[in-house]
């Protein structure tokens, strides 16, 4: 499990991210925002598409963290936790990792307002304690959402609200309680989730009990989560020992076509962590996944050591994810990740190598086969990140070399995975002084593979064409190149304004004419300017 490295804050807003924290995710070579109709709508991690990546708010799954291409959560009361190098045992049900938004404590007195080209955000703590404890809330109103329609014309999808709040109570010296509602309206992924979390802390004991309810367009659920931690010092020759156990459940009604089956997902897990020496830590455990009648075991372990300024870590994890047809054996992923990090006073470097083995992937039915969970795949890659912090300069470089394949069955020829991007490079250089900050970012990414259309069959009854496809993912879109420029200006004590301009124009993908005789490139806008202004009190 990796913490957000806060590079976006360190370099003062990522150029090309348009002031959006989720779009800043792409600075990490693990993450890709997957667009629908050209608007970021899902989060992919390495070769895992959004359907395999779970999104959580305060420990509970939500259908989306994006609305209209922008992140739902609000500065000041949220922080993000990334699961790209292995998921904590407390989380499961996904073979592609995850991303969690933690609502932050509503302490202190502050207010924040932001206005961008498409939305306005307000977040604030209450001036006085409400209901006996601190309270904070945020709201975003989106008045414009660009979306490409089926006919490839541009339409606006209308305005919508996002809401988020947090109310806290301190019940005693050991117990605290938090209520955190979050909601977004509109679209296919609109939802509301309300969570009540009780925390206990007494010396070496810690515990969390949480219950939550979700009301979504295609899913309604009642969920629970509990975990307990016991920390011991100097036990059995070990400097420290940590025992954790926990559970999570979700009872849901899910809309699947005309049916709304009731589904139960659950997890029981136990983990043991030990400081084996002054600079060596080992964590291990297992998670029992329950998907209705399917039960699977997911063992996970990590060992990390510090040699002077160099830290190394090795993680091996197994993950399971329920199939759409719950009677089918769950999809599997086994991941091994090795990390080496080096820190200096003004510089840090990390290199991550990974190997992921995937199996029991659902293969879509075709004209010659029925859909089965026989698909297999692998992903290998090396990712490197370097950050450098000077007095007036900040620089960040990230690159990845990867290879991801899929095959319909073990003996079938493999082909590139849908999100296989063999090369990815990102560089940001920012200068800041006297209230000004100027950042430049260059992005270079391999184009994604796609299945070419080799012909079409004309249906003389309906006067329409249906495509004939070539080998899966046998063609690839051209390299994506993007240059971004961001200028920030502090205006007095409380105001901050920025201009963010993306220079692109590259090919995003392809579509076809109605009769599939012409391949038509979908191009990014050559120049995309963005302005925003933020006020803090």
């Amino acid at each position: 499990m990796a913490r957000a490295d806060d590079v976006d804050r360190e370099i003062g807003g990522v150029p090309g991210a348009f002031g959006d924290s989720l779009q800043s995710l792409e600075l990490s070579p693990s993450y890709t925002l997957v667009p629908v109709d050209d608007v970021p709508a899902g989060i992919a991690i390495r070769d895992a598409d959004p359907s395999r990546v779970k999104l959580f708010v305060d420990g509970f799954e939500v259908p989306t963290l994006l609305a209209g291409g922008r992140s739902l959560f609000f500065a000041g009361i949220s922080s993000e936790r990334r699961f790209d190098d292995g998921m904590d045992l407390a989380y499961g049900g996904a073979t592609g990792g995850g991303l969690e938004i933690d609502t932050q404590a509503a302490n202190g007195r502050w207010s924040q307002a932001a206005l961008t080209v498409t939305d306005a955000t307000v977040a604030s703590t209450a001036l006085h304690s409400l209901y006996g404890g601190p309270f904070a809330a945020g709201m975003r109103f989106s008045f414009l959402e660009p979306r490409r329609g089926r006919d490839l014309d541009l339409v606006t999808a209308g305005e919508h609200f996002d809401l988020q709040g947090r109310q806290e109570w301190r019940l005693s010296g050991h117990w605290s309680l938090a209520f955190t509602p979050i909601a977004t309206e509109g679209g296919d992924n609109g939802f509301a989730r309300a969570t009540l979390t009780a925390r206990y802390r007494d010396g070496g004991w810690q515990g969390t009990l949480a219950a939550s309810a979700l009301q979504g367009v295609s899913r309604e659920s009642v969920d629970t989560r509990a975990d307990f931690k016991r920390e011991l010092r100097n036990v059995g020759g070990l400097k420290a020992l940590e025992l954790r156990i926990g559970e999570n459940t979700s009872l849901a009604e899910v809309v699947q076509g005309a049916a709304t089956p009731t589904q139960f997902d659950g997890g029981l897990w136990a983990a043991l962590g030990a400081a084996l020496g002054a600079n060596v830590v080992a964590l291990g455990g297992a998670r029992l996944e329950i998907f209705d009648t399917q039960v699977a075991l997911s063992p996970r372990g990590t060992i990390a050591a510090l040699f002077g300024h160099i830290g190394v870590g090795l993680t091996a994890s197994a993950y399971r994810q329920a199939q759409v047809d719950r009677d089918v054996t769950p999809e599997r992923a086994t991941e091994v990740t090795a990390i080496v990090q080096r820190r200096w006073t003004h510089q840090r470097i990390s290199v991550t190598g990974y190997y992921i083995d995937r199996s029991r992937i659902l293969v879509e039915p075709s004209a010659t086969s029925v859909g089965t969970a026989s698909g297999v795949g692998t992903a290998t890659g090396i990712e490197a990140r370097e950050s450098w912090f000077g007095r007036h300069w900040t620089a960040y470089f990230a690159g990845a070399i990867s290879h991801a394949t899929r095959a319909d069955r073990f003996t079938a020829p493999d082909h590139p995975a849908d999100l296989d991007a063999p090369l990815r490079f990102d560089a940001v250089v920012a200068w800041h002084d006297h209230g000004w900050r100027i950042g430049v970012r260059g992005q270079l990414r391999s184009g994604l593979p796609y299945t070419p259309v080799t012909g079409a069959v004309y249906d003389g009854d309906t006067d329409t064409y249906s495509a004939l496809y070539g080998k899966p993912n046998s063609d690839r879109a051209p390299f994506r190149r993007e240059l971004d420029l961001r200028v920030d200006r502090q205006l007095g004590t409380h105001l901050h304004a920025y201009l963010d301009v993306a220079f692109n124009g590259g090919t995003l993908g392809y579509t076809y004419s109605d009769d599939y005789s012409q391949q038509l490139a979908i191009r990014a806008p050559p120049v995309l300017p963005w302005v925003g202004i933020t006020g803090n009190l």
Partner: protein
Amino acid sequence: MKGAWLVIALVGLLAGCVDAGDPPWWLDHDRIVAVRLEPPAIQPGESAMVDALIAHRGAPTTDDQPVAATVVSPRALFTAVHYNLDHWQIDCPPVAEQTSLVVEMRFPAGEVATKTVVLGDTHANPAAPALAVPDPVPLHQDIALGDAEWFTSCGTLDASRTTLRVDEPCDGELVGVVRDLGGGVAWQVVPLHAQ
């Protein structure tokens, strides 16, 4: 009103673009325009012939017969489609009830099409659309074409594809296709000369 223009301008800024392809009515383009069975429904003992109107890039449309044909469904009736001397035809076998026979056919340039013939029924193709286009076609004038699905390789059609306008001298074709709910198809092809 100012707000609306602002929204349009912002959407324009945020928009990518898609390379322009040929419009669906453009005839100067390799494609099948229509497939016709004559007749579209047959009784046992009757036969239906098949042909297609095919558009070509840089050349006039052609009325082609398939070079190969086969039954897609129901496969048990595969003998209904056969080659007879110099053309493919569909013979209606004895059937207890109306049956839709889907036939796949390949045309000389490699185009592939499917078409359904109704076995155990009687239906005729509609009349070909009437074309009343002046010759030569006057420039810079809207010419109403009437009820049909129109295609052209000279000038442009409006969004509803019922009005022809030619702004530059050209030579090409105008095609009108009519279809009915019973699978009947008819077309008319006329040369266009605009100056």
